[in-house]
């Protein structure tokens, strides 16, 4: 065991690099997913069939196919068509499109649950569509969607572990290297679990903070969140916990 720990300590610098790769995948994927989710979420709400149709097709396609197959497809098949990307970019694109498709349902549902009267008031005040959405509708929908987006973000983080199979040296890869070095399955995979859990915990903490802030802006937050509330692993979502359930792989 002490040998294991010595090996782990020797490999800490590489863990740092691996965490950076995992975070790049997660945050890059999340940013792309947010863009995709907004575009498809709003796209599937428009009256124009030319926008709504393709939006639905993209959502159904990415939700309906396996992330690992998408990853391999973009990494191995797409170069045959002349589109070659670095492994990190491939990871970000696959994660972003996949979770963006799930996210679009969250966006669509949350926008739909903003009362119709709010849209009517924005029309009565003669706002442009973009102005309505940016200043009135989205801020209200945002507070509703954060708990569901938190779930997706955590799933995206865990989904990023697949990137090790397209040569990326992320936390999953580091864990595997630790196993080879120590020859101790229990020790190395437990270390891997703890690292993922720590990252997930930090992300949840950040999202809880965003949620409290959004609620306070709507005047629904009770007070500034205490550290303990913010650090809760499970956000208090109550009846809002209609999760966009999806498998990571």
């Amino acid at each position, binding site marked *: 065991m002490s040998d294991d720990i010595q090996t782990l300590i020797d490999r800490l610098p590489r863990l740092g690099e691996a965490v950076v790769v995992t975070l790049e995948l997660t945050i890059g994927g999340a940013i792309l997913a947010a863009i995709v989710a907004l575009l498809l979420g709003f796209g599937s709400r428009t009256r124009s069939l030319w926008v709504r149709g393709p939006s639905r097709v993209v959502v159904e396609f990415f939700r309906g196919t396996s992330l690992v197959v998408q990853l391999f497809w973009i990494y191995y098949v797409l170069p045959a068509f002349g589109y070659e990307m670095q492994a990190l970019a491939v990871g970000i694109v696959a994660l972003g499109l996949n979770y963006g498709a799930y996210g679009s349902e969250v966006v669509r549902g949350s926008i739909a649950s903003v*009362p119709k*009267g*709010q849209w*009517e*008031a924005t*029309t*009565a*005040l*003669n*706002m*442009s569509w973009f*102005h309505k959405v940016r*200043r*009135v509708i989205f*801020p*209200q929908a945002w507070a509703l969607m954060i708990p569901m987006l938190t779930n997706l973000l955590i799933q995206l983080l865990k989904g990023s572990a697949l990137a090790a199979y397209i040569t990326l040296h992320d936390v999953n890869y580091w864990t595997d290297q630790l196993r080879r070095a120590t020859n101790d399955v229990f020790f190395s995979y437990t270390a891997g679990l703890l690292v993922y859990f720590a990252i997930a915990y930090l992300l949840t903490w950040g999202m809880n903070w965003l949620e409290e802030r959004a609620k306070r*802006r*709507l*005047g*629904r937050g009770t007070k500034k969140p205490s550290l303990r509330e913010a650090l809760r692993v499970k956000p208090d979502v109550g009846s809002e916990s209609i999760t966009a359930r999806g498998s990571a792989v």
Partner: protein
Amino acid sequence: MTTSTGETPAIEFRDVTKRFGDNVVLDGLNFSVPQGQRITLIGPSGSGKTTILRLLMTLEELSGGLILIDGDPYTHEYKGEKWVKVPEKRRRVVRNRVGMVFQQFNLFPNMSVLENIIESPVHVLGKSKDEAVADAERLLDKVGMSEKRDFNTNELSGGQQQRVAIARALAMDPEILLLDEVTSALDPEIVADVLGVLKEIADTTDITMLLVTHEMQFAREVSDRVLMFDKGQIVEETDPETMFTNPSHPRTQEFLKAVLG
């Protein structure tokens, strides 16, 4: 397009039809409202009163006919020998002249009272923030809500929210104000406050007003003309005095008897 006095009417409905599926709510309706006139629409529910206001606010699309505001095409215009929809960009120019207060207030919960009021004057009319705030404070004073300036909207009672909503509509400096059952969602003891505010606005401005209300006493005090609707048609149209004391149409007599008891 002109009335007998030669002035362009503030609002003109021409052959307006509105259908929801198979349900015909308005059927070839024609009427106009002279500048500055206060009109109350009465009639049983489902008679199309609220639909008229919603069409004027472009919350619904017409099924047929057209609406002109100050003689300007608002919903449709004649182009290339046929009637076509007015594009949103030009419709917005005309829509600036129309404001609306809703039954359910519809204040924006993500903004304070003041922010609710200045949002559109700043971002739609292009007023400076200082000017918009000064106007908003004047209006809040007028509706008796100055102290709540920085409150969250959900800290206010229904009556207070409605007064803010009235200030918000007035901040856009509308020529036409649509009031859609604005006291129907309020507790009885609050109704008088809100009606008092509206009465003062009616007395101190020359805004053209269209109101749908069940407050017959109020309608009698502020309106110049009352239109009785039934099944999407105007069945009687007269001054409030005559309408409430001596209506001629049997449907009006029946309706007023039911409402006034």
